[in-house]
């Protein structure tokens, strides 16, 4: 059984983590993080896109179409990173019983799912000119699709409970079960693609110019900043919904 927040608070009283584990304390901090996130996202995206389109040279083998990479790769990475973060907070919530942890994983899930859609969409559009087809049953691609299913399952499950607290714990459990399965699925799909190799074209890796690499890295940081800001915004909305009636909220939302 999970410890209750009260018990945990007593035990760990005074540590910074527990101070911010209280929604009331984290609400203003989340606001600050959110603001910084939006600013960074806009600035970094501006720099990254400028570099990507105007500084980075045309790719020798692919031509201009490779410029999709500046959003495709960051989106694909965020899909995985956010899933891990979501499962981490879900686990924290189950073990420590802190409300904020569950809210954190709920706040991350929709952004993660959107990143999965962006990775799949941009990858498909990129695949057509490079591999001659929109879709290939490649291991990396297929795992991204399954990761998308796991996100949707998590969100659908938490929406299926009228009792929020139960929904929190139930969906946290399914997030953890999914997290254990991700590597199993990845290696199974990899095995499967080698089993069925032949017709499908496999993604080749091209050596990249350093400006391309830089543009991609900067865009990755822009995606990070965006995802953090969006998650913090969603987190604050949830705090408002769930702490309705708490006195401190009146001042905070006026």
């Amino acid at each position: 059984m999970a410890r209750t927040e009260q018990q945990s608070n007593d035990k760990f009283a005074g540590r910074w983590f527990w101070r911010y584990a209280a929604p009331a304390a984290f609400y203003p901090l989340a606001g600050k993080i959110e603001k910084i996130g939006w600013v960074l996202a806009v600035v970094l995206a501006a720099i990254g896109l400028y570099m990507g389109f105007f500084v980075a040279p045309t790719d020798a083998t692919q031509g201009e179409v490779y410029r999709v990479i500046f959003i495709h790769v960051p989106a694909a990475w965020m899909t995985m990173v956010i899933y891990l973060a979501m499962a981490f907070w879900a686990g924290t919530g189950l073990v420590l019983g802190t409300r904020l942890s569950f809210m954190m994983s709920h706040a991350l899930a929709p952004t993660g799912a959107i990143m999965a859609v962006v990775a799949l969409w941009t990858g498909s559009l990129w695949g057509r000119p490079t591999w001659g087809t929109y879709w290939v049953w490649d291991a990396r691609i297929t795992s991204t699709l399954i990761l998308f299913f796991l996100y949707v399952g998590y969100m659908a499950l938490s929406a299926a409970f009228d009792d929020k607290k139960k929904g929190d714990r139930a969906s946290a459990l399914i997030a953890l079960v999914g997290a254990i399965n991700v590597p199993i699925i990845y290696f199974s799909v990899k095995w499967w693609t080698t089993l069925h190799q032949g017709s499908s074209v496999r993604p080749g890796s091209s050596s990249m110019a350093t400006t391309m690499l830089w543009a991609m890295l900067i865009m990755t940081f822009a995606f990070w900043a965006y995802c953090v800001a969006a998650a913090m915004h969603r987190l604050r909305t949830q705090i408002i919904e769930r702490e309705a009636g708490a006195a401190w909220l009146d001042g905070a939302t006026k």
Partner: protein
Amino acid sequence: MYCGYCVGLGGLQGARGFVNPCSSLRLEALAAERGGKAVFTDVSVNVEARTLLRVLGPNGAGKTTLLRILAGLGAPSAGSVQWRAPDDSERSPNEAAMFAGHANAMNEALTVAENLSYAAALAGIDCTPMNLRRALTQLGVEKLINRRFGSLSQGQRKRASLARLLLRAQAGERAWLLDEPFVALDTDTQAQLAALIGEELAAGAIVVLTSHQAVAINAPKMQELML
């Protein structure tokens, strides 16, 4: 129907290997939540053997919630529940008590005997055919032992499912947690159940009861808990 273990021989090993047939119950600063909202807080009470504890309160006061916590079916948000044997060793709720809620806990496709012996096995009771027949006879439904539960009338169902409480090897051995047990019973059966509760109390059991109906029960000791 007198429970020797309880009054005089606490801690002595019984003839068939039973230790400490009776219990006492202590709630300390108990609080519970449902759906994130506090239902009750700071409930403390001490119940000895041979006591009837009536839990009172309006709809939604948390009576069912409390009984489920006592049965080990829910966790309190704060405080503690302790079932203790007379020698003061702690017991698990499942060893100490039997819970009967709104639902019958009987599968309609199985016979009465099959349902009851399943319930006994899960409660850790060694249910002999004799025990089973005796329990059904006490409720006047021994004829139904091999009938499919789904083929019984509402009243017969209720009686057959109450037989679960009487499966224990020895009267008074376990506490009874009864949530609105008189609902849907006609007056005869109500009186019969009240008598059974009285006997169990006399034999040394604790009975915790919620009921919106005022049914007279002949209890050695009585306590009330208002939620």
